[in-house]
């Protein structure tokens, strides 16, 4: 009986044959899967899901979480392997996480909402030769440094400013009310500094109907904006233009109410903060009627409708905004590039990204296409006003979902409920 289990050369040969057959059998299947769009493009999603920008980072992540479901809904033969990395709202952590993601085999990097963190990641992507698709970050230098592995599907600060100021004029024309003066309050991080620089350079050339009376900058980690708001109030400007993030947007409006300053409008020149879900939730009636001039989701696109449907089903309590929209689009760009490249090699993916033209996507604007610098220049801004606790497109008229309210009602006006 014992001979039956003896390990012989013949048995070794049989075992090797069986093993090779077991391993080799699925090869044609795997090959076929690869041809039809396999599930092995590894996308590293780098976002600030903790720290000061955590809520926005998580809003971005929700857009990425729905990517595969929307692709399936839209009958796209592709599925991404998305791996999440937390940048903790710190550029140094963003850099380390990008390196970690590349070590772990990421084929494409996506991120990182904030310009400072994105610049840190872009340097790593460039050094290591791995494509980076920027979901959100407006600092112009990201696509001005001749990087070969970086593309950005988000407007630069000058694009944001140009689009926003054009909308300002449309709003004044539509309402028949024009402020005479405005004060700019801006965060002094990479994004804010780029915006201030852009506004200073572009404002004199844009022939705006109001005078910019002061620019007040403040620390991103500011825990109190009472002095900043007092200084802005002292200018007696008709309009407040905030370039802010979420937490400072809340502090700013809180101080406006406390200091009983009622400008004609709180209208940003292209910045986050005012349309964020947490802002609308915590500010209540004081969060109403402020206007953000930013790129927004196109409600008429079939893909947006699919994304909204999936979002409502999976994240019923959360709002789908431009953070989720642009992060979803970053995933869409990665998927389309992979389908075009039929390879996960960085050079092939970059070549595909450069030649990409995505007609069906979710944000307002023309097809997603990158210029020689890697910048999508077809993005268009919309005026989004907070109405009934929801950011609502009010301009341009063609896309408006509600009537514009301008000037905005005072803090104790009955229209604020």
């Amino acid at each position: 009986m014992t001979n039956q289990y003896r390990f012989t050369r013949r048995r070794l040969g049989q075992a090797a044959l069986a093993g090779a057959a077991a391993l080799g059998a699925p090869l044609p299947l795997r090959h076929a899967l690869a041809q039809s769009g396999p599930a092995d493009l590894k996308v590293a999603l780098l976002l600030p899901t903790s720290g000061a920008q955590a809520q926005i980072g998580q809003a971005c992540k929700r857009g990425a979480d729905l990517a595969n479901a929307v692709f399936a809904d839209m009958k796209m033969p592709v599925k991404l392997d998305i791996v999440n990395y937390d940048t903790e709202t710190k550029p140094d952590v963003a850099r380390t996480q990008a390196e970690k993601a590349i070590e772990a085999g990421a084929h494409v990097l996506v991120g990182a909402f904030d310009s400072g963190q994105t610049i840190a990641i872009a340097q790593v992507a460039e050094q290591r030769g791995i494509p980076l698709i920027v979901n959100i970050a407006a600092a112009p230098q990201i696509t001005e440094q001749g990087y070969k592995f970086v593309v950005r599907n988000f407007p630069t600060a000058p694009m944001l400013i140009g689009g926003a100021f054009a909308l300002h004029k449309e709003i004044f024309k539509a309402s028949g009310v024009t402020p005479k003066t405005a004060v700019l309050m801006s965060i002094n991080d990479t994004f804010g500094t780029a915006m201030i620089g852009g506004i200073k350079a572009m404002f004199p050339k844009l022939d705006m109907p109001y005078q910019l009376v002061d620019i007040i900058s403040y620390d991103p980690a500011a825990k109190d904006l009472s002095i900043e708001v007092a200084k802005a109030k002292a200018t007696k400007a008709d309009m407040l233009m905030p370039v802010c993030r979420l937490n400072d947007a809340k502090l700013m409006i809180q101080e406006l109410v406390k200091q009983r300053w009622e400008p004609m409008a709180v209208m940003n020149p292209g910045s986050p903060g005012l349309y964020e879900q947490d802002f609308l939730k915590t500010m209540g009636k004081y969060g109403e009627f402020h206007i953000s001039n930013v790129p927004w989701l196109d409600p008429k696109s079939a893909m947006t409708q699919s994304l909204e449907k999936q979002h409502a089903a999976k994240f019923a309590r959360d709002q789908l905004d431009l953070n989720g929209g642009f992060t979803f689009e970053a995933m869409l760009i990665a998927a389309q590039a992979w389908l075009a490249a039929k390879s996960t090699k960085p050079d092939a993916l970059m070549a595909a990204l450069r030649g990409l033209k995505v007609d069906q996507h979710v944000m307002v604007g023309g097809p997603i296409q990158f210029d020689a610098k890697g910048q999508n220049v077809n993005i268009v801004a919309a005026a989004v006003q907070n109405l009934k606790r929801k950011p609502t497109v009010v301009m341009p008229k063609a896309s408006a979902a509600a009537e514009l309210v301008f000037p905005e009602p005072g803090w104790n006006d009955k229209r604020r409920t």
Partner: protein
Amino acid sequence: MTSDFLLSLAQAITKGLLTGMVYGLMALGLSVIFGVMRVVNFAHGEMMIVGMYLAWAGSEYLQVSPMLSLPLIAAVFFVAGYALQRGMISPFIGRPEHQQFLLLLGIALVLVNVCLAVVGPDSHGVQLDSQFDSYEVGPLVLDAVRLHAAIAAVVIAGLLWLFFTHTRIGKSIRAAADNNMGALVVGLNVKRLYAITFGVGAACVGAAGALMITIIPVTPFLAAEYTLLAFVIVIVGGLGSMTGALLGGLLIGVSEAVAGLLVDPSLKSMFSFGLLILVLLLRPQGLLGKRGT
């Protein structure tokens, strides 16, 4: 100068005074502990954020306003401070200063990492009914939340003064601080007095934390900032002087607010450090400190 500018200046000074009172209360704990035990509490900012987190948790999970949970938080901090002093700090009194420094730095690291592990790195703030309220006093507009916090800070500082000047234990603590040997000779239990002092100092920090959470949200990373701020305040006011700590708090609060208005808000912290350097150069013992402390 225009009347608008003067009004803005008056507004900034008022705001600085209100914030400075809470700063002063925070620094009071550090000053009391050093003044009596000659131990520098390097875990001060970390204790402060623990107080802020407790007040936040009370508001978030039990719907208790930080102002109402303040006495309980102060009591918990008193007991914890007493136990910490008896269990860990007492053996280090009289030892070289670097050993005390390492011990308290270790405690600080443990506290901040426990906060990170339990609550995470995100910021947490409380939603108050008075969040958007303000009071008009003549032409001045006073922030309701800051005013309430400042009044509470003044009341607590007053109670502390009464404790040290009108109670037997308070007088004994002052006696031990003035002459340790004399206190031992007359039979005072100095070890117990030191533990009570640390408990009182910790209670001040806990109370300041409960007040501070009404003004700003908390993250674990704020701890180092608060430790530094408390040091700046007590050094400006005079290390070991209770009145000095309050004065230092007011000076730092006002200097930051006025600098923010006159120069640039993002440069306001530079002025508190400028004030510190000036005091160190001209009066190293602090404005109300005694020589040799």
